[in-house]
């Protein structure tokens, strides 16, 4: 009996998302912060590459890592009509399995994006992969198909011809899907065990790419959905609105984030909201120093780090006042991430800047993989996972 319990506990430990994992877009809780140390500062296509796997197609989705497995999606063939979900051993890089789907929705999109734009999400035992075509599949960590939905068949007007790119996120046993478009627009809460709808609630009818942020308000788990015109907190169990803030020129691509009692809403200007005891959000500050483009801001030790057109800006999270800004050049699609006191900023050309954070920033390295790099890096355990146009790199220091 004891052995059985130990085995069960071990299985739970192995299979569940846990510290060190990077289970969704922008990592644990969507914060963009990894609990990792001993990461390499410098790398290249040959230096500090633990493994590199060739991918069967394009994609701008990030890899996710949990339970010793790294998952990534891709899209291939003419007009990206073939969709791929791949699973690798996170340490050795061995391909564990690959499953393919034929796209059931339209595949027209802006050339910069891809049908493999949304980042998958994993709980360590399953991986949930959404594509811009509306194809949504859940696989076990061993590659068994748990369920599958062709969302565009259920809701014909949900896709758009720029390309959906917002990623699904998990809140307990509910998978949250932002399906916000000009034609049909709604948020969906899906039962992770069956793929059936738990709730469906209408959203602003406009094309939108924001991945929701899950947090807690007054004892309830809430998902923050943001568009150019609003940020709204939904009860993840029921889909009921907990609070909503209407704004102008909020970001339609970067995700909101949370620090102390403030919700940081990227926009032009960005807004910090404090939700009062009455449940209504109040504006704490606004800042034009933090403008919304593609990348989501990351909050670390009371400071906000956000990408500008030409570099990175650091703001005081409590006041919105700028502390410093650093030039890095241009061309950012990926969101910055933080680990071990360092900021990692991936540029479209393939270089990743590593910046030591502090009262003054210090650029430690610019590591060029010489290949298009649009996906946000993933950092899990002692490794950085970079998804370029054609490859998945596992970057780690030699032991």
């Amino acid at each position: 009996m004891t052995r059985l319990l130990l085995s069960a506990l071990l299985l739970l430990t192995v299979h569940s998302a846990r510290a060190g994992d990077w289970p969704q877009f922008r990592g644990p809780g969507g914060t963009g912060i990894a609990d990792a140390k001993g990461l390499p500062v410098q790398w290249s296509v040959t230096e500090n590459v633990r493994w590199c796997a060739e991918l069967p197609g394009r994609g701008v989705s990030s890899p996710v890592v949990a339970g010793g497995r790294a998952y990534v999606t891709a899209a291939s063939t003419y007009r990206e009509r073939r969709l791929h979900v791949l699973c690798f051993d996170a340490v050795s890089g061995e391909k564990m399995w690959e499953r393919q789907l034929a796209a059931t929705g339209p595949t027209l999109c802006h050339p910069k994006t891809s049908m493999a734009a949304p980042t998958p999400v994993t709980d360590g035992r399953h991986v949930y992969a959404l594509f811009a075509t509306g194809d949504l599949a859940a696989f076990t960590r061993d590659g068994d198909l748990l369920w599958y939905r062709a969302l565009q068949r259920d809701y014909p007007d949900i896709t758009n011809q720029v390309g959906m790119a917002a990623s699904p996120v998990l809140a307990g046993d509910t998978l949250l899907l932002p399906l916000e478009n000009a034609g049909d627009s709604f948020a969906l809460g899906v039962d992770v065990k069956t793929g059936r709808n738990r709730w469906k609630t209408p959203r602003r009818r406009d094309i939108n790419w924001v991945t929701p942020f899950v947090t807690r308000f007054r004892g309830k788990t809430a998902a923050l959905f943001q568009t150019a015109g609003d940020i709204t907190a939904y009860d993840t169990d029921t889909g009921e609105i907990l609070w909503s803030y209407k704004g102008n020129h909020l970001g339609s691509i970067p995700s909101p984030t949370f620090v102390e009692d403030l919700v940081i809403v990227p926009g032009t200007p960005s807004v910090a909201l404090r939700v009062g005891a009455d449940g209504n959000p109040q504006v704490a500050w606004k800042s034009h120093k933090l403008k919304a483009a593609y990348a989501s801001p990351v909050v670390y030790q009371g400071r906000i780090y956000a990408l500008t057109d030409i570099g990175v800006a650091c703001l005081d999270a409590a006041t919105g006042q700028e502390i410093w800004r650093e030039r890095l050049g241009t061309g950012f699609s990926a969101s910055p991430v933080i680990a071990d006191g360092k900021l990692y900023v991936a540029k479209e050309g393939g270089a990743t800047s590593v910046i030591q954070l502090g009262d003054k920033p210090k650029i430690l390295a610019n590591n060029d993989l010489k290949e298009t790099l649009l996906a946000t890096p993933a950092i899990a355990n002692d490794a950085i996972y970079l998804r370029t146009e054609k490859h998945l790199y596992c970057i780690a220091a030699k032991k």
Partner: protein
Amino acid sequence: MVEEVEREFPDMRRLISGQWLVLLLLPASVSAQTSAEALARLQAVGREGAGNEAAAHAWKAIVRQGPAVLPLILQAMNDADAIAANWLRTAGDAIVERTLAAGKPLPAEALEQFIRQRQHSGAARRLAYEWLCRIDAKAPDRLLPGMLQDPSPELRRDAVAAALRQARGRLDQGHKEAARAAYRRALAGACDKDQVDLIVKALEQLGDKVDVAAHFGFVRQWLIVAPFDNHNDAGFNSAYPPEKGVDPKAVYKGKDGKEIRWVAVTTDDPYGVVNLNKELGKQKGVVAYAYAAIESPKEQPIQVRAGSMNGIKIFLNGQELYHRDEYHHGMEVDQHIASATLKAGRNELLVKVCQNEQTEDWAQEWKFQVRLCDAVGAAVPFTQRLVQTNNLPKRGKEAKP
């Protein structure tokens, strides 16, 4: 497990006769009953995930059967909708992956036989081809040369790609005439724009001209009437008089009460693009209708394939085939696809192209293109007869696409 299957799916009417035939031929190691019932479960998945749980059990049961069940999976794809086909595809892929990882063989002969039988689903044949290629590196050379006119779009594309490589090789060796002939052979099978573009460019460098619009089956001659009102995008769902029947000599009250008439427009764009800003003058918040009389030599199933970055509706012989209420998010050949049937003789094709009121520089385009092709994307035979209007009377002149 089987009892559960029978309770949830008591009859097997969804199984087509071909599947039963394959079932009878299965090796003894494969449970025909389990396989048939499990496949039926996958084919029964409905809207919004209805049937997902039963399908997940069935998926595992099928995968447990191993490689012997692959022909049955392929056969089942013949009768599967897009959702069931993906359940089947992933089951087959899992079997192939696990079989090869265990060092066991795939049923190569059965796969090749399935690929060669064109009556099967194109997607299933391509899947069988992919599996076969994993164990037989010579399969492409053996199979693709005979697939330039294949009814499977993916296999035909593979065949065209192989023919292109051959043509390029001839050219690199300095054999221009052989290269020209090879490119012409490739063009005869090519339906995808990227491949056609490559071939046309190569042929033009060899001194050959290609009528691209005819190759694709673009409709080139239209009557156009505009503007009807689309203020606040409301015109998209307003059925203006042309939707109730086209009279080429009619005079309509358009936007702001202005009298408007049909005008004849012929596009010489290789991809059949009609630029409404150029033909009618730049306007915003408006609806245009484009009408074409299509003469078909026979009754034939077709696809109407359109491209437009404007709100679009397509009607054939008075029936709405397709609509998409989306603006300025890109335009591509074959962006919008609707299936229909052309009747023998005269057919009336009507396209509604809506322009919204966005003011951004990137939101000013107002254009469309339409082609008539088969399910693979190859042009179908049709001619166009110019229709007499009040404005530009023309009579009796026929044009092939």
